[in-house]
């Protein structure tokens, strides 16, 4: 489903190489986790895939179901079925959460040549989904992410993910800043979206999120490359021994 080949990325304004040949394939229905120390390039990978500016791809490719992602605008990648749950969701003052969601849903529908969702259908859908994520109606009315707690912001990301029903979900450190209960809620939300067809790429520092979202494959990323790939046991190894052992082993 998601195919990344030999991806090299540098900062646009600086001569600084961040990704140095990333190879990764996420199959439909699978959950892949990427772990790695700070500065290994995990978040950059998620940004480059979703089309954020400020990066330059110097080599390699990335495609979703055969469609070249790097050629598309950010919004076209979203419409193609890619979703990024942000590590730091952005605040948009004055724009109601519901308005934002509906604008996004209908923008994607329009781009796919579908009719916009009616206000009534949308409301029904969003209420149902919000309820399953324990997001109350009041939070839907508040401006996007403004004054949200860390947990509310991340649940809001999962709500957007559920409403947009992407093919491929990238979760960038969704566990950061969450207490155990909030993390469980978010994980349940993600697990509810595992339908055997949808692909997931879960980026995290810690193994604990992977207790709740069970990965099929775990990758270790360091210094702009994936240096080791294994099963869920690899995450446990990191949890117990840290990254030092694996880094030493590879070098």
């Amino acid at each position, binding site marked *: 489903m998601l195919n990344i080949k030999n991806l090299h990325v540098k900062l646009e304004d600086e001569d600084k190489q961040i990704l140095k040949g990333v190879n990764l394939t996420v199959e439909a229905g699978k959950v892949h986790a990427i772990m790695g120390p700070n500065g290994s390039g995990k978040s950059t990978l998620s940004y480059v895939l979703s089309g954020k500016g400020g990066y330059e791809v110097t080599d390699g490719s990335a495609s979703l179901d055969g469609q070249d992602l790097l050629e598309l*605008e950010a919004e076209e990648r979203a419409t193609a079925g890619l979703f990024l749950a942000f590590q730091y*969701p952005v605040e*948009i003052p004055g724009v109601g959460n519901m308005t934002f969601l509906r*604008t996004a849903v209908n923008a994607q529908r329009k781009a796919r040549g579908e009719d916009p969702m009616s206000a009534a259908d949308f409301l029904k859908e969003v209420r149902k989904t919000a309820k399953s994520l324990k997001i109350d109606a009041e939070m839907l009315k508040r401006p996007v992410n403004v004054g949200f707690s860390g947990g509310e912001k991340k649940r809001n990301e999962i709500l957007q993910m559920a409403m947009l029903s992407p093919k491929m979900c990238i979760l960038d450190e969704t566990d950061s800043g969450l207490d155990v209960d909030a993390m469980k809620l978010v994980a349940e939300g993600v697990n509810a979206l595992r339908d055997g067809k949808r692909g997931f790429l879960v980026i995290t520092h810690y193994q604990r999120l992977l207790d709740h979202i069970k990965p099929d494959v775990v990758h270790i990323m360091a210094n702009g490359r994936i240096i080791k790939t294994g099963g869920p046991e690899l995450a446990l190894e990191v949890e117990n021994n840290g990254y030092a052992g694996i880094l030493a082993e590879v070098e």
Partner: protein
Amino acid sequence: MAALDQTQVKEGIDQETVDAVREVGGAYKHGWATDIEMEYAPKGLTTDIVRLISQKNEEPQWMLDWRLQAYDRWLTKEEPSWAMVDYPEIDFQDQYYYARPKSMEVKPKSLDEVDPKLLETYKKLGIPLKEQMILAGVEGAENAPAEGRKVAVDAVFDSVSLGTTFKAELAEAGVIFCSISEAIREHPELVKKYLGTVVPVSDNFYATLNSAVFSDGSFVYVPPGVRCPMELSTYFRINAENTGQFERTLIIADKGSYVSYLEGCTAPARDIAQLHAAVVEIIIEEDAEVKYSTVQNWYPGDENGKGGIYNFVTKRADCRGDRAKIMWTQVETGSAVTWKYPSCILRGDDSQGEFYSIAITNNYQQADTGTKMVHLGKNTKSRIVSKGISAGHAQNTYRGLVSMHPKAKNARNYTQCDSLLIGNKCGAHTVPYIEVKNNSARVEHEATTSKVDDDQLFYCRSRGMDEEAAVALVVNGFCKDVLQALPMEFAMEAQQLVAISLEGSVG
């Protein structure tokens, strides 16, 4: 007169105009023969033109005298230059004050000949085809078959007020809503009593000019204790013929009454900049309340700054009685140059003035706009919320005065000015003037300037919105406080306008 008789009148020129010119022809003996070669009333402003306008409107002598006095004052006045706007010098003798500067020949024959961008705008506003044709000045549009819903607006088109739809129902409530020319004929006692009492004839250069040459506009009188049963709406258009660019609006809310008044403005795209100098006067008596909302979408010029409306407008409300209330709400998205400061004179004790404004400038537009809150009475309150958005090469200035007079004990003002910049070639300026002449008054002023954040745009785009939709969403969020102050149907239109006027502002 011989010259006039021989002049071939082009098809489509209003016969009435020709007749009117003919009737007062004697007064035009100076240079008339050469000027009439243009087949329409001559350029420039003279007492003869003032007489012509008055005569055309079938005005009584007192009105003509009023105009002529204004004209004399205007001759002694100088164009103001303090605003932060820059435009080529206007030759006031090179303007048409009554007749039609463009012959019917240059009128577009069909929608195919109209600037497609303008049509796109109308379409996005949900204006039906027939209305689009009328707005675009297409020949014979009035006779085209109507389709779809009718736009529920009363219009001042070419000096003809169409604001008569609900006349019977309004009359039942005692509300007078008609064109100002009709009011001058039918309700002279009211017009005489109030006209020029809020914006005096000699108030400023443009207001004085307007007083001399205003062609038409709207008149509203709400009698004591009456709550106007519906929103009153006037739709102004600078039409293709370049007439009707000096509207005059007079609104009187008598004791304990209430009225909400909506004003919409558009203009067809023309290469040559057009002058617009309107005056709005509002009188609010004891315990009365007026809401005045404007969505101004005059043609802003093209993306290179060519053409567009020069908008020099004087709007003022006088809270004469105790506990009178005025609320101005404006959404300014059009015009090449905007010079406009809807003001509140808070004369009555406990009277209140509010001003909510969104001013959007894109490409080469310039706006210098704001308000004046003049606190004269005790316990008067005012609130200013101004949102300025600049994109492209535009310059956007908030200019506001808060004045607390010695007798305005315990007067209060709160001002909030927020500026939003899109791109790095535009400018935003805030020029607040504050005068406090008594110790018990309280004035608060808050101002912010921010840029549309790349992270916000990326966040929206990563959810599937294109860049323009993302900008529109973020900007609408920025303007929310003001959009909320608008009546419902206007709020929708304004939101769409925000999106339209910022097209091409990013990327």
